[in-house]
Structures are given as C-alpha cells and as structure tokens.
C-alpha cells in the first residue's frame, strides 16, 4: 500500500513508542482501518484546524467565492460550506470552526466532532479531512493532529505558512512527519498560494485502493500527554524552529509601550472613527440620493396605481433603506479587516482591556462597540471574537445604545429646528454642536450603565478566563480583506434585507389601507394614522401628538424613516403643506417635546436590522425581545422625564 503524492511515499508503519501510557483509559483510541470501498470518490471534505492557522485563507482560496454561510442547529456556531473551485465533479468543503483539540468542552469542538463523525443533522459524514496546521508553531498545533487522524478518515495534513517558516530558517523532515502521523503531509502557503495543487490532486484523485496506511497512533489520555507526544514527534522529525522576524517584537515594543501604546491607540481609533464618518456619511447620503433618483426615473415606466405605489413606495423604499447602510458597513469592515489581519487589533484589545474590565466587559468588546457608532449591525456581527458567551451577549445588548449614524438625520433635523445657533466656546463650539455631543454622551452612558447592570446580575461572568492570542504582525492582503467584505456584506444584506423588506411592506400596507373608492387614502385616513391616534394617549405625556406617533411607528423599520414619514404627513396636511419640515415641527412640538423626542431616539430600539442580526447571532428570539422591551422602557421613561421637567421649567 503506497500513496504517492509529489513523490512522497508513505509506507505502512507500526506503532511508535512514546511511553505515553495507560491504555485502559483512552481518550482517543488508535485508528481503525476503514472498510475498503474501491469506488469511493470524495464528495465532502472537512477542513479543520486551530484558530490562527490560516484555515480561512485556505478555505477562501480553495472555494474562490462559492461559499454559503449559515448556523449549525441549536448553537451559535457559524457553518460555512463551499464548493471546490475548478473543473471536475462537485466537491463540497465544510469549513469547521477553529478548534485547538477535540474535547467535548465547547460548542465549537462539539460541532466539529459531530460533523466529523457524521452525527450532525443535515451534514453527510465527510469523505476526507484537510487538517491545517501552522508549521511555525507546530508543537501546539500537533495537539489537534492526533485526535483528528485517529478518527480514521483519509486525512491530508497541510503545514501552512511554509513561506514564513522557510524564510526564518525553519525546517523539518516532511517524510518523517508523515510516517509519524500516518497521513500524507504537504507544505503549503495559503497566502502565497503554493502547494495547493497537491491538495486538489488529493481531493480529486481516483481512489481504487484504501489510502490509509496502517499507522497506529499512541493512546493519548489528555492534553499534557498529547503535548509530550508532540515534543517527541518534534525531535524525531528534526524540527528546526524558525527564527521569528524581530520586527514583530519591535513593533510590540512601540504598540504596547506604556505611553506611546495608548497614544497610538487613540490616534488609530480616532482615525477609523473620523474616516468612517467623514467618508461614510457622505457616501451614504450620495447613495441614498442615487437610489431615490433611480426610483423616480422608474416611476413613469410603471402604470400609476397600486402596483407603482407598492413597488416604489413599498419595496424600493424598503430596499434602499437597507442598501443605504452598505457604504458604512463596508468601510467599517475594511478597517476592522486591516486592523485584524495586520495583527494590531489584538494589541488594541489588550490596551482597552483594563478600561473595559471596569465596566465588566472584555477588552475584545472594544472594536464592536466602536463600530456601533457607525451602525450597530456590523458591530454585533463583530462580537464573534468574544469567546466568553456572557460577555458577548452583554456587548450585543449594549451596542445599539451607541449613537449610530441612522440617528443623525433626526438629530440634525430637531437640533436645527429647536436649538439656536449660538456659540458656546468660541467660534467652533456652538450650542448645536454641544447638543449633538451630549446626545452622543447620553448613548455612551446608557451603554455603560446597562453593561454594569447586566454584568452584576443576569450575565454574571462565567468560568472562561480572559485569554488573548497575539498573532505575529503580518501585511494584510487585498484578497483577504476583499473576501471578508464580500462575506459580511452578503450576510448583512440577506439577514437585514429580508426583515426590513417585510416590515416596509407592512408599513406600506398600513399606509395605503383602507382604500377609498379604489384609491389610497389620505394619510390622515389611513390605517396607520388610526394606529397613531390610538397610541396618542400613551405618548401625550411625552409631548408627542399623533403625527409624531405615526413617525414612531414607521421608524420601527429604521430610525431615519421618521424624517420621510413626517415629511409626508406634514406635506399632505393642507395646514402645513407649504412650510418646510423644520417650520412644521416648530409649530407642532414644544421645546420640551422636541428634547423628549431626541432623548427617545437616543434610547429606543428602532431598527429591524439590528433585531434581525441579534436574533441570528444569539440563535434565539429571546434576546432581541428582551432588548426591544428594555430599550423601549428606558426610552419612554427618559422622554417622559425630560418632557415633564422641561415643561415645568419653561412655564
């Protein structure tokens, strides 16, 4: 039985003796031979490897862009399946979550074991396994090799990052390693793309003989023994550690310096923030304009009537309110990708940890919370990096309090209408800027307070200690960032898009019913206005009338929708028809009411996309529901207080 891969011959070998011990208590048994199946072709391949082994880069390389992302049933573990690029029969590649070992202690590992043993519902048992290990840190990574190979599936061991390894003067005997492991081994570099043709040949080859050599792996009882075995393997394969580039340490000397570290951190954070706003906002607005204009161009092409109203006012508006988020999301993920791939993000989390800990959160929550200033949706998607489940949920729950960019249109409108343009601190700092800043501060404080409450009661910290791996500094590649953008963009569009469309349609239906003689009713007669009148008693103490009420109802889709809704309402009302929206509001709202409205928007959950993403990330409806109720209660109470206090003060 000989397997030839690139001239590498692996011959049957007997058990290697490592003195590892007690055969009566095996954690991983020695490998059994698979039953012979002469016509076995590989249809499904599992890709497994530790985190930071470059597995995702490899997955992206192998599948090009043909991937699908979902969730495994019952757990918040992401499922990625793709198709091998290239000619030939279809081969599915299942990218398993990054795991260090196959113990049953975490969701990720359980999912991996289930998939590999064919016990995962909806997934056939893989026909082969690609095991990706980072060759520059082989000792640690080998801990995964034994249990995976012991499962008995045809396995190809890929030693990734071979380019960095070789450049640093590292070397090892590939043939000896293959002998030790009883599986073919190949050196690859996912970033450079070398060695991948071997992978394809392994996957596509016609197998008319049983591939698995008869290697018996030692019985390894637990992790310390696995590590001892790994050490011995290291000696036997003449493993020569590569010399890591001294640049990584030097950069860390600067980035984690007592004084310069935090300063650089602030500069980087400030720069990201500035850019996402400075470029993201105008891009969003421009995009919005473009979409509206497209809608207007399309209008004459569709016969007037219900259909046109449905398509344009309902569907198109709904779609554009989703698409308008896209520039900021992409910009944000671009920067996160840059920071993460280069390795700086870990350092930033380290610097932020001390501060975050005083609130009860994790240092890794920093970037998600920062991103929430642009949009809570990608922020919540970015909380995946937090392994501690409770910290993660706490971060997800407080992210929407951060003043997202969707609040800005209504903030700007109300501030312009009700706050005079008086300077407060010299020319640069007027009353309006002051008001805007206080709103930002309000959101921030609400987030912190909520975090403190959550972490000291409902979500008290569980066992998993804070551990952060600092990868070596790398130069990010356009490809990896590009793929990440594509991936996150797709997830957002699919998740948020479906829910927003649904709610937009619902609002459209409510606005256009009941029909008066076959025509859509005036806004005052529509179903949604009735609802607005219905809730008016509830919102009167806040200083709002039924028109604002309608706006609140429609903005459940997304916050900025209220501006359009108010525009329509005041626009069609003959009394306010010729005024600007600002004027109309000044007539209809008191100062106290306006401030209350601002505060309401600062705290309320008015974003279907957010709820949709939270549902996806927590895999249940419980948390989005809790979030919605909690934030609505806080918003109502705060707006009530502001309105009452200010009204009595002004009298």
């Amino acid at each position, binding site marked *: 039985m000989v397997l030839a891969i690139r001239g590498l011959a692996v011959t049957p070998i007997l058990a290697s003796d490592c003195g590892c011990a007690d055969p009566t208590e095996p954690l991983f048994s020695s490998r059994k031979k698979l039953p012979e199946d002469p016509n076995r072709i590989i249809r499904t391949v599992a890709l497994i490897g530790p985190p930071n082994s470059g597995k995702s880069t490899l997955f992206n390389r192998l599948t090009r862009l043909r991937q699908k992302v979902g969730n495994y049933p019952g757990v918040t573990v992401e499922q990625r399946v793709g198709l091998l690029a290239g000619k030939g029969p279809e081969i599915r590649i299942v990218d398993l979550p990054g795991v260090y070992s196959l113990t049953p202690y975490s969701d990720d590992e359980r999912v991996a074991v289930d998939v590999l043993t064919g016990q995962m519902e909806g997934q056939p048992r893989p026909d082969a396994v690609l095991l990706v290990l980072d060759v520059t840190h082989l000792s*640690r990574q080998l801990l995964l090799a034994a249990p995976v190979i012991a499962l008995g599936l045809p396995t190809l061991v890929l030693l990734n990052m071979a380019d960095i390894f070789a450049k640093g003067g590292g070397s090892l005997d590939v043939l000896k390693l293959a002998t030790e492991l009883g599986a073919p081994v190949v050196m690859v570099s996912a970033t450079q793309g070398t060695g991948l043709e071997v992978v394809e040949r392994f996957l596509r080859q016609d197998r008319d003989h049983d591939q698995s050599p008869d290697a018996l792996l030692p019985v390894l009882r637990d992790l310390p023994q696995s590590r001892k075995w790994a050490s011995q393997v290291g000696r036997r394969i003449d493993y020569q550690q590569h010399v890591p580039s001294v640049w990584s340490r030097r950069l860390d000397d600067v980035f984690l*310096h007592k004084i310069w570290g935090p300063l650089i951190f602030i500069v980087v954070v400030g720069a990201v923030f500035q850019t996402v706003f400075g470029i993201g906002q105008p891009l969003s607005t421009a995009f919005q304009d473009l979409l509206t204009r497209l809608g207007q161009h399309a209008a004459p092409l569709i016969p007037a009537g219900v259909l046109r109203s449905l398509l344009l006012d309902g569907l198109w508006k709904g779609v554009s309110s989703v698409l308008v988020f896209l520039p900021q999301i992409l910009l944000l993920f671009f920067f996160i990708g840059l920071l993460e791939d280069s390795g700086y993000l870990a350092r930033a989390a380290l610097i932020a940890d001390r501060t975050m800990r005083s609130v009860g959160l994790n240092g890794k929550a920093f970037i998600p919370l920062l991103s929430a200033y642009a949009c809570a949706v990608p922020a919540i998607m970015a909380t995946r990096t937090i392994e501690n489940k409770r910290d993660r949920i706490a971060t997800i729950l407080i992210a929407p309090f951060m003043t997202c960019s969707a609040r800005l249109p209504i903030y700007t409108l109300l501030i312009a209408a009700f706050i005079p343009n008086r300077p407060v601190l010299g020319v640069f700092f007027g009353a309006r800027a002051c008001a805007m800043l206080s709103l930002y501060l309000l959101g921030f404080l609400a987030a912190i307070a909520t975090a403190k409450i959550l972490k000291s009661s409902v979500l008290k910290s569980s066992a998993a200690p*804070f551990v952060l*791996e600092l990868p070596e500094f790398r130069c990010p590649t356009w490809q990896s960032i590009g793929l990440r953008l594509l991936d996150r963009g797709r997830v957002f569009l699919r998740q948020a898009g479906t829910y927003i469309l649904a709610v937009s349609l619902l609002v459209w239906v409510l606005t256009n019913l009941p029909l008066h003689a076959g025509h859509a009713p005036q806004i005052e007669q529509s179903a949604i206005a009735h609802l607005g009148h219905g809730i008016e008693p509830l919102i009167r103490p806040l200083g709002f009338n039924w028109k604002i009420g309608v706006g609140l109802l429609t903005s459940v889709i997304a916050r900025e929708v209220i501006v359009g809704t108010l525009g329509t309402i005041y626009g069609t009302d003959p009394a306010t028809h010729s005024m600007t929206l600002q004027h109309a509001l000044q007539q209809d709202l008191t100062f106290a009411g306006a401030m209350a409205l601002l505060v309401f928007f600062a705290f309320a959950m008015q974003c279907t996309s957010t709820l949709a993403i939270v549902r996806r990330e927590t895999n249940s409806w419980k948390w989005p529901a809790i979030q919605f109720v909690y934030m609505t209660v806080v918003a109502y109470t705060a707006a009530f207080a502001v309105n009452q206090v200010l009204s009595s003060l002004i009298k």
Partner: protein
Amino acid sequence: MFHTFIVTLRQGAEAALIAGIALTYLTKDRPQSSKKIRPRRAHKLDGSAPDEASESVKLEISELRVALTDLEIGEAGTIDQISLPSGEQQFLMRIGFVPGAHVRSIRHAPLGDPSVYAVDGTEIALRAETARYIKIRRGWFSPFGD
C-alpha cells in the same frame, strides 16, 4: 487667525507624536538584554543538588515552583500545574498552557495588566488574576524552543 492656530497645533502634535515613537523605538531596552533578570544559582532541574546541605535543597525546591506572575520580564520556565477548577483548566490547556509547555514572560500591557507570555513560541496575553494560578518551574528547554 484662530483657524491657523488650530492647524499649527495639530501639526505640532503630529510631529511630536512621530518623533516620540521614533525615539522610543531607538532607545527601548530589548528584553533579551534586560538587566532585570536576577542572577540565580545554577541548580538541577529535578530539584536535587548533590553536594549541598538539606536546608539549601529545601530552599531551592521552593524557589523552583513559582506562579506565572512571579516571572520577571524575559525569564522562562515550564508549566507545572494549573490550580484552577477543571473548566477553566481545560480552557487554558486548550489554548496552550499545558503542563510541560515552555513559557517566557514577554511584557506587561501599558496599564500593567494583562501580561504577555510566549507559550511554546506563541504570544498569549493573560490577566494576573488567572496567571497567578499557573504554577511553573523556572528554566527549561524544549525542542520547540522559544
């Protein structure tokens, strides 16, 4: 007038920042050449010291096992055991803090905590509240080095 003032201020700050970074990088002590490592007596790693009195043997044995937090920057050791409940223990072992692993203290975060350790060559940050329960023996070498 005010505008030019602001602009100059900002440019000045940026220049100062860049100069500071460059200066720090050039003058920073490298961990390897750090004088912080206390001079130690040579002793056998299995705890035995053939020709010494039992008193000093006892001293040496107790000196050998310390907490991860007791390592000075640049000092290395081998992980001996993790005195934490089983769940946290497994978690740490999976990340790489396995008994037998080679660990070296690299640096502290700017605010003192967490600290960065090189475990079998990989840099991992750990809070002091966790690191103090990881017991190590000073000085050991594995084929996978540092």
